[in-house]
């Protein structure tokens, strides 16, 4: 155990992550379904980040960053798949974001995925170069 243990190392029956997993899921749902772009992006980032955190804390993975990266990839793949399946190719353009009901939501999901990939990637590299 490290010299300065975190809360959940000090106390075996405490973990800060569940609250934020739940909050992240709630915000993601509101953001995506109601169509609030910023809420969707930030909610998904919080959700993905908390999943990475809770998996690391409980020892299923060693470091959070690959999980964060993975969740980001999954979101982008999902968004892309829905776009190809449901949005006419001619309508897939940056200028159309904010007009169609589906495209804007998919862009929000993809944006959250991109941020997570960036965060996960940068943190991974920083961690490896620092070590």
């Amino acid at each position, binding site marked *: 155990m490290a010299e300065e*243990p975190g809360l959940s*190392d*000090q*106390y075996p029956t405490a*973990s800060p992550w569940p609250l934020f997993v*739940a909050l992240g899921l709630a915000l993601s749902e509101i953001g995506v379904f109601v169509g609030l772009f*910023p809420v969707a992006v930030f909610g998904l980032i919080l959700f993905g980040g908390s999943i990475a955190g809770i998996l*690391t804390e409980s020892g299923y993975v060693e470091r959070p960053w690959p999980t964060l990266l993975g969740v980001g990839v999954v979101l982008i793949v999902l968004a892309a798949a829905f776009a190809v399946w449901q949005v006419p190719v001619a309508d897939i353009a940056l200028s159309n974001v904010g007009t169609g*009901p589906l495209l804007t939501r998919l862009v929000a999901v993809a944006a959250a995925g991109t941020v997570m990939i960036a965060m996960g990637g940068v943190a991974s590299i920083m961690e490896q170069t620092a070590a």
Partner: protein
Amino acid sequence: MVAGDIVLTGLMAVLLVGVAALLTRVENWRSYTPLAGGGAVTGDEAAVINREKPAGIIRWLTTVDHKDIGLLYGVYAVIAFAVGGIMAMLIRLQLVTPAGAILGNNAYNSILTSHGITMLFLFGTPIIAAFANYFIPLLIGADDMAFPRINAIAFWLLPPAALLIWAGFFLAPVTENMIEPARTAWTMYTPLSVEQANPGVDLMLLGLHLSGVAATMGAINFIATIFTERNEEVNWANLDIFSWTILTQSALILFAFPLLGSAIVMLLLDRNLSTTFFAVEGGGPLLWQHLFWFFGHPEVYILVLPPMGLVSLILPKFSGRKLFGFKFVVYSTLAIGVLSFGVWAHHMFSTGMDPRLRASFMAVSLAIAIPSAVKTFNWITTMWNGRLRLTTPMLFCIGFVSNFIIGGVTGVFLASIPVDLILHDTYYVVGHFHYIVMGAIGFAAFAGIYYWFPIFTGRMYQRTLGKAHFWFSMVGTNITFFAMLALGYLGMPRRYATYEFDGAIAPLTQVSTFHQAATVGAVILFIGQLFFVWNIVQSWLEGPKVEDGDPWNLERDGMLDREFQWFDEQLEAEAPEKDPSLLADGGEEEQDDS
């Protein structure tokens, strides 16, 4: 619109930075040492711990201890019960006069919708989860739930769910009624629920969806816990009755709630993205009713089986006799669980569905009365010639049996197609299911709260107030809901905000009288709940401390279950060390002054 987006972005960014900052403060991410399988505590780790839980509010926000989460569920459910109860009082006050006494039609419909959803999803399911979280691990001798963190996630999904379900009430004043409370009734029938453009409906649906996700996570956890975490002394033959009912309930949740979640997503897509799942040119409006009731009827048993388990557990303790026909109570639980998925269309007899299908649903609906009656006779036979002790939890158990008989028998009549066609959508239905949800489920919840109050709090409740609570509840319940049965026979339709009928439709004088009687009953019921709240709060703070690990004197009859043995061990461990942190549940800081 752009300005709004910028403000929202700013708010979200601040929230995210705040969360990250908080997490960095409380948690050292580099310190994690891998745990085997992500489980709770391993032996060598426990050795370096000097206190069990962090202090103050952080304890409650970060806890993954099943007992703390049980208490959180309990407090949440009682708050939701108060909200739903106040809504019920508004409904009853409205109906004192035929023209409606206090509310406009829209307000009435909003409150009616929220009352139903609040009581079923925010009170019913969580109060059961409260008992199950606290006591299943203790009853089966487990250290904790199988997945403690998932347990915490399931609870923390509920506060956002409640806020979303009630969102319309908060948002209507600030958005100049752009977002209003949903007025779909709790069944959310299409096409009404698709055509109400109000975004409050979307928020309510999202809240319901979250509560469904929470229930499913909890169910998976209970199944895994009961299957894998039992102590070696606990096998399937001697597993207690409450754990059996929770296991069956969790299986029902596993099959029913994901279906509700999917149906809600389809409804949201119909509302927001122009799909046609429930449109006439698509799946048709009746599809919603099939999907909803395929969830909705098992939901009734999801709500009633664990309370039956509570009664089966508590009633023998105060009868001085073991539960009569234990095996058959278990079998009937399993039978109800299976049959509950074959009765859903009895909610739809009057929709014009195929009569041959109707007949088969009638047969299964009548058949489900048999295992229910098995239980009822077993409870009565357990009390027969027993040494009855009429403590408050026992009174509530007996009240449960009594109300369940009335609620159950009225249900058998409704299962019959010809009777249903006359009584469908009348107050008879409302009276019938309220006998079950308030008279039975509510009563069992009270029985559980009083029975385990010493374990929750380390203190005893005030007996006289407890008994007053019971008698006011019993009398109030029976006046209110019996009057509703009579209103149904008179032809009073349910869900109406006013009832100024033509005399040819229904006898207005009698209808008004029974409505007034129901309101008087509701007031009595409400007063009873004030006794309850006062008793619980005051006793928790100031009640006499329980010194004995067997406050109900169960050892005499050889009925001291594992949870009270655990409680006794806690009291004994606490006595020499005078360390309040050892009695972790209840957060009683004053334990050390005894």
